């Protein structure tokens, strides 16, 4: 039993670490445009997002019944595979954060699990049809739907207010942005903290600590909520810069149009049963806001890099998850080794990020090298 509890503790801690990266990866979704237009100061924005995420975590504790939602054969998933999948997801989240690319944390988690299950239980336990249906198609549909909606919304916002003074327009839309950004943050909190609660709860059930069909214990809800809101409050400034300033130059009407589109698409999709990725919806709506304003400049190089990172999310997280599953399957020493390597990698990424730090102070400044590097073709 001792080995089980060591692994279980490792799974719980890794799940909370994943939750934390999920939080700071996704701050940009709700707050990037508000920070870019000055609707909220950077520090206030992350505080609001963090609090709403925490509130969201407590409002909805209806966790998933299965870890993968049918992407892999859930009966084949062991604790080691969950651990390895989480490691793959965390590392991919850190790499994309370092590069300032918004990528879906749920896709990273699915990718990690797919790799871990593939190595641990064989390719037959991976349901490729479901992957296409639940990940690939939504991944293509999300940004397209959000982009079209945001183009129209932005166009209308500018046409209707074209005779209104620029001062009133800027002030009014910035005020509106506070509301629309808060809705995105709240919706995010009710969705994403649940993923981690679900992972921990299912790990507890599968190791016999909780009975079948049990809900998450209070400490799971609390720790998952705290982890994601702490992550959100830390603010993934590199990603916020890319989404707020890198993709296109966002003005207040565009920010309002983008956030309203994102909220509408996220809520419509989650209530009509066609789950779309929050990150991809938000990125698409920002792109749409850029296309909807005449003379706005969309940096297609940045958009291309983001698209490439989305293509790579599943395979890259799967590769790490697979290797981690193989090593961790060698027993507690393997688990400890994987955890150690992951921590060393995380520390390395952190040190690398300090070379060109992005902070609340400089998040709205686009550094000179960015247009150059985006000008070259995306490999």
């Amino acid at each position: 039993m001792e080995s089980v509890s060591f692994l279980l503790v490792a799974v719980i801690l890794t799940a909370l670490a994943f939750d934390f990266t999920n939080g700071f990866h996704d701050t940009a979704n709700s707050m990037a445009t508000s920070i870019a237009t000055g609707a909220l100061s950077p520090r206030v924005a992350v505080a609001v997002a963090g609090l709403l995420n925490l509130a969201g975590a407590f409002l909805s504790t209806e966790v998933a019944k299965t870890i993968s939602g049918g992407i892999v054969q859930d009966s084949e998933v062991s604790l080691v595979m969950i651990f390895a999948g989480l490691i793959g997801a965390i590392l991919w989240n850190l790499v994309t954060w370092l590069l300032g690319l918004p990528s879906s944390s749920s896709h990273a988690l699915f990718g990690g699990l797919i790799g871990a299950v593939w190595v641990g239980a064989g390719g037959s336990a991976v349901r490729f049809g479901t992957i296409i249906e639940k990940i690939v198609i939504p991944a293509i549909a999300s940004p397209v739907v959000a982009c079209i909606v945001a183009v129209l919304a932005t166009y209308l916002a500018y046409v209707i207010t074209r005779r209104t003074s620029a001062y009133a327009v800027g002030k009014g839309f910035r005020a509106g942005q506070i509301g629309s950004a808060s809705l995105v943050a709240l919706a995010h909190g009710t969705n994403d903290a649940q993923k981690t609660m679900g992972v921990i709860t299912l790990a507890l059930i599968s190791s016999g600590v909780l009975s079948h069909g049990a809900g998450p214990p209070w400490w799971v809800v609390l720790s998952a909520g705290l982890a994601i809101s702490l992550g959100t409050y830390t603010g993934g400034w590199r990603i916020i810069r890319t989404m707020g300033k890198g993709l296109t130059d966002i003005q207040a009407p565009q920010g309002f149009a983008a956030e309203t589109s994102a909220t509408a698409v996220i809520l419509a999709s989650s209530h009509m049963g066609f789950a779309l990725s929050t990150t991809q919806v938000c990125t698409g709506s920002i792109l749409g806001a850029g296309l909807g304003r005449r003379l706005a400049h969309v940096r297609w190089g940045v958009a291309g890099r983001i698209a490439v990172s989305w293509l790579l999310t599943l395979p890259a997280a799967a590769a790490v998850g697979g290797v981690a599953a193989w090593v961790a399957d060698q027993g507690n020493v393997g688990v400890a080794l994987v955890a150690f390597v992951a921590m060393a990698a995380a520390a390395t990424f952190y040190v690398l990020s300090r070379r060109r730090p992005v902070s609340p102070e400089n998040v709205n400044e686009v550094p000179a090298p960015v247009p150059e590097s985006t000008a070259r073709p995306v490999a």
Partner: protein
Amino acid sequence: MDINWSTLAGVFAVSLGVTVVVVVMFSLGLAAWARAGHGQPASDVPRGRHQKMATSAAVLCFASCLAVAAYGIDLIVPG
């Protein structure tokens, strides 16, 4: 593999409709608010009945946005 295209089309239609309603209402509200002389030096804006009409139109527009937002919160919060 069973891709539910009609649901996706529904998501698209609903989110397009809701977004357009909110953004149009908010923009009209802003335009009316500014026309009523709020948020700018109002020396050349006609005063009186016209101004009151514009203010109440703006309030109506903003209220409709708030109503949609409240419905959104109701959707987010389960139960």
